[in-house]
């Protein structure tokens, strides 16, 4: 180890340079992870918070189901009569509104039945109690909407009284707000600019939220009731832009994980070639292959771990700086996992050079080898 430290000190410029490269790769992976998680949360956190196991859509909605699917009330009744299944209607619609204090906000209106298992409750103020009430997510409160405000839906003129605040939730990058199904149906089915409200609104919902003990009977119920049921996690793909974002961000991460070992491997490859005479000298002096491999790995570990830790700190700092402005979320568990993966990938790259270390020929130190 002493020898490894001596070499690190002697070639500190090169190792520092490599450490900086690892730092930047690690920071980039951390930042991309932060955006991946943040964008994912911003797109589907309201869906993640739904305490349902499955969602049943109308079968004609093949994509963007929350916007396209309309499930009639009698289908809901059918589901509610299925044994082993709890069912409650869910409405989802993206709109925008302005408060009486002139705060303009986008709103993902979630229509739920008060008291049902989808009722989000309220961390502050009062939970959903009746028509034209709105329980907003913390994100809307951060944007300036407060309990007691009246939020008027643009172009529809529907006035919603903000009664409570619940946990942070959003859908399609729009902060969520919870209202009754009747109010949601008015938002969803009222024609913009209509002089008078519709006499009778369709008794339809975006989906039916299910809590099923087992998925075994759901297919049979789908066939009988004319719905298409998916697991809640699969329903995330129905959120606008979710799949595209995930594919994009995951692709970037994938290539970064490919780049990390190649960059580190290339550095240690060049470093190993450059110090072949010294490795041969150490072998001639009696250093065992195991010892040389050990101290090469120790050097790689020092550079990789130092660079990764600094990269993690940089990614966290970026998160702190931009977290309020853009969807960025880098919890400790995600940071630890991604940085661990970067370190492993980088060490794997360094390990690619070990064969050259092990095969350094001490005979090259003598005239016979030249």
């Amino acid at each position, binding site marked *: 180890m002493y020898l490894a430290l*001596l070499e690190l000190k002697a070639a500190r410029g090169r190792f520092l340079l490599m450490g900086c490269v690892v730092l930047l790769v690690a920071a980039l992976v951390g930042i991309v992870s932060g955006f991946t998680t943040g964008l994912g949360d911003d797109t589907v956190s309201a869906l993640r918070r739904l305490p349902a196991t499955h969602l049943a859509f109308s079968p004609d909605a093949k994509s963007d189901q929350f916007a396209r699917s309309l499930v009639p009330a009698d289908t809901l009744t059918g589901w509610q009569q299925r044994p082993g299944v709890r069912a409650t209607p869910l409405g989802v619609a993206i709109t925008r509104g302005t408060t009486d204090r002139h705060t303009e906000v986008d709103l993902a209106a979630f229509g739920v039945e008060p008291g049902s298992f989808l009722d989000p409750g309220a961390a502050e103020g009062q939970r959903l109690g009746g028509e034209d009430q709105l329980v907003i997510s913390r994100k809307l409160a951060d944007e300036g909407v407060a309990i007691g405000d009246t939020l008027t839906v643009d172009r529809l003129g529907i006035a919603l009284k903000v009664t409570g605040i619940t946990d942070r939730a959003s859908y399609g990058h729009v902060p969520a707000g919870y209202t009754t199904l009747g109010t949601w149906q008015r938002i969803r089915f009222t024609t913009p600019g209509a002089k008078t409200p519709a006499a009778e609104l369709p008794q339809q919902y975006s989906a039916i939220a299910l809590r099923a003990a087992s998925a075994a009977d759901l297919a049979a119920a789908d066939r009988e009731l004319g719905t298409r049921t998916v697991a809640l996690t699969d329903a995330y793909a129905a959120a606008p832009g979710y799949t595209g974002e995930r594919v994009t961000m995951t692709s970037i991460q994938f290539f970064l994980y490919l780049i990390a070992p190649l960059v580190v491997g290339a550095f240690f490859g060049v470093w190993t070639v450059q110090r072949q005479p010294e490795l041969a000298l150490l*072998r*001639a*002096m*009696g250093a065992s292959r195991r010892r040389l491999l050990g101290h090469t790995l120790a050097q790689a570990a020092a550079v990789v771990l130092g660079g990764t830790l600094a990269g993690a700190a940089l990614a966290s700092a970026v998160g702190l700086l931009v977290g309020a402005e853009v969807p960025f979320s880098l919890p400790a568990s995600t940071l630890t996992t991604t940085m661990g993966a970067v370190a492993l990938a980088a060490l794997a790259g360094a390990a690619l050079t070990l064969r050259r270390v092990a095969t350094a020929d001490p*005979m090259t*130190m003598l*005239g*016979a080898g030249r």
Partner: protein
Amino acid sequence: MTSLTLRGITVSLGHGDARTPVLRNVDAACRPGVLTALVGPSGSGKSTLLAVAGALLRPDSGQVLLGGTDLAALGDGERARARRERIGYMFQSGNLLGGLTAVEQLLAAASVAGRPAGRLRAAAEAALTEVGLGHRLRHRADRLSGGERQRVALARALFLEPELLLIDEPTAAVDREQAGALTELIARTATARGCAALVATHDPVVVDAAGATISM
């Protein structure tokens, strides 16, 4: 006091049909406390014999006896152990570790041998002072002259008090004046330490200073 005895050393180098005999049934001996010159024309096998004597190369046949141990009969791991614990090397042009100071060259050798290098700094400084480099202790290898690098290499080779000192063309990269001083230093220190010392050389200055000669 340990002597080196080489008996019936035969070595061929290369692979397959290109395998060429380099040493054929060579006998040689190296007494403790005596600088022995290994001389011969280029290609005569001096460096190969030095490699065999230093457990860097296993002969096809023959014995390499160092204080009763046949180095040729040892496995790779045991030969590496013999190299780090019993043999000191001084290679052509010094062959120092890049970026390390003169003192660190000796501490690196101690580290390779598994000694507590961190606690041997004073001893390393004393060893360098003994070869006339007390004023160059913290100079990096690339800041030293050819002669100074050879002195560092000599100090490193002797630092762990080896039983056998092997030296390859010590004066090849230094001028005449330095060659004389370096040769005198090698002969003096090898004699004083009482170790067997074998030096492969073309240089008459070294041959003249040697107490014995092996001709190839």
